[in-house]
């Protein structure tokens, strides 16, 4: 029984083949089952050390990786921007080399600069997992989205997936686009033209600025959070206007097919990109995404961590 996996790092979905993505999803099935056992812990990464290195703030991704590592019996250290020596002027490479000198086996990195995980992955023996780098990629989020779609609809190929919101600044959107296109889904991006420029068509997706035309033939709607913290004023006039044109309101949700899935990577801004009734409604799989995120991260840590030390 050999694997179809040979990478020590997970940097993005752009570089993965459809077969590799499917292999991660199949491995995730096995780890999702562990969550239903009486003892939800397996010894797969016993004795390994994982460093959660988060230069940008994050709660759910970091805790999800942390819990995934615990369930695989790895030891975990958390380092955030404020507690690291980066604030004392140490370079990223020096900090990482220090971590390696402590024999860290897996480095989970969130960084505001695109390419930071690749930079470290090329230089370190340790396995590097990208937990979000700038506006570049967030591969584990896209993998858990793909897994959730596959779980709920039984397939991905041929489905029409509509991604709505701040595409330009979204690493989640980018990773989702790479993964969905490789697995044969039809993808439409929706949002104001400032945040969803036509350039994205080069990635093999459709672009629309009129949400009401797209919703009736969607199989999956993935809503992205409007990132106030990244947004500059010139991109759109205001939150109220965004909701009026692109928010998934109660009324707009009636346009959707009855079996259309509603997804959101979280944290959700209730009343902005999605109404409360819709977020908590029957079509919403937002909490399934959180559960599946744990299983996906266990699979990724097992595969990359196992390869790095082999």
């Amino acid at each position: 029984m050999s694997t179809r996996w040979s990478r020590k790092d997970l940097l993005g979905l752009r570089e993965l083949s459809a077969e590799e993505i499917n292999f991660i999803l199949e491995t995730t099935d096995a780890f999702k089952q562990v969550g239903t056992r009486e003892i939800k812990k397996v010894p797969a990464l016993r004795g390994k050390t994982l460093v959660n290195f988060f230069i940008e703030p994050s709660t759910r991704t970091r805790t999800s990786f942390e819990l995934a590592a615990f369930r695989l019996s790895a030891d975990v250290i958390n380092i955030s921007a404020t507690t690291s020596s980066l604030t004392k002027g140490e370079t990223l490479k020096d900090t990482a080399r220090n971590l390696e000198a402590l024999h860290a086996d897996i480095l989970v990195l969130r960084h505001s600069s695109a390419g930071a995980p690749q930079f470290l992955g090329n230089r370190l023996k340790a396995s590097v997992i990208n937990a979000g780098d700038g506006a570049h990629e967030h591969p584990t989020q896209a993998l858990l989205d793909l897994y959730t779609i596959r779980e709920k609809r039984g397939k991905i190929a041929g489905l029409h997936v509509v991604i709505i919101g701040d595409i330009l600044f979204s690493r989640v959107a980018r990773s989702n686009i790479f993964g969905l296109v490789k697995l044969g889904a039809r993808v439409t991006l929706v949002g104001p033209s400032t945040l969803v420029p036509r350039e994205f068509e080069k990635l093999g997706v459709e672009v629309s600025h009129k949400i009401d035309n797209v919703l009736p033939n969607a199989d999956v709607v993935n809503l992205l959070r409007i990132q106030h913290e990244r947004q500059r004023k010139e991109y759109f006039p205001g939150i109220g206007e965004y909701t009026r044109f692109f928010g998934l309101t109660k009324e707009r949700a009636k346009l959707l097919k009855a079996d259309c899935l509603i997804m959101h990577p979280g944290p959700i801004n209730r009343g902005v990109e999605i109404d409360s009734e819709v977020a908590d409604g029957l079509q919403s799989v937002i909490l399934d995404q959180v559960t599946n995120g744990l299983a996906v991260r266990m699979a990724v840590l097992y595969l990359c961590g196992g390869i790095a030390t082999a």
Partner: protein
Amino acid sequence: MKQRKQNSSAAVPIMDAEAIRRALQRIAHEIIERNPQLAQVVLAGIPSRGVEIAKRIADFIRGIEKIDIDTGIIDVAMHRDDVGTRPELPVVRASKLPVPLEERTVIIVDDVLYTGRTVRAAMDAINSFGRPAQIQLAALIDRGHRELPIRADYVGKNLPTAANEKVRVRIGSINEPDGVWLIKE
């Protein structure tokens, strides 16, 4: 395992389909004899051939005793003690066992019993589902060379081997007949 390599190594036939059928039928009888509370028995196959062997034994028990016993799948990849020391990572598959396991007798089913390390990993995996009353072990082939204090309760065939030999088992293939071969390198 599905393709037979045509190189210098010699494959000596050990069991044909009929011999395997008879061995599994005998194991079914032994399980019935050893376990008066047959309804409490769970046959847990180790992927992939152990799962097929467990299914066949369950079929024989159904034929003899008219009782459907539970079967399950117990994946050992994430419970192995050698992750990171082997050149290739074992594929993990989802386990499936009926719960709760308390009061049940779980019989681990595998194709070849060798060092015993796989069985140890399987026992760890079973314990993470609960605490069965008893764990037993059935193997189609026992080839010896144990590295742990583990012994099978039910054996299809004892096969003395050298450490540099390999045992190939084919069972449940769509195109080709079942069989067991000893491969001398």
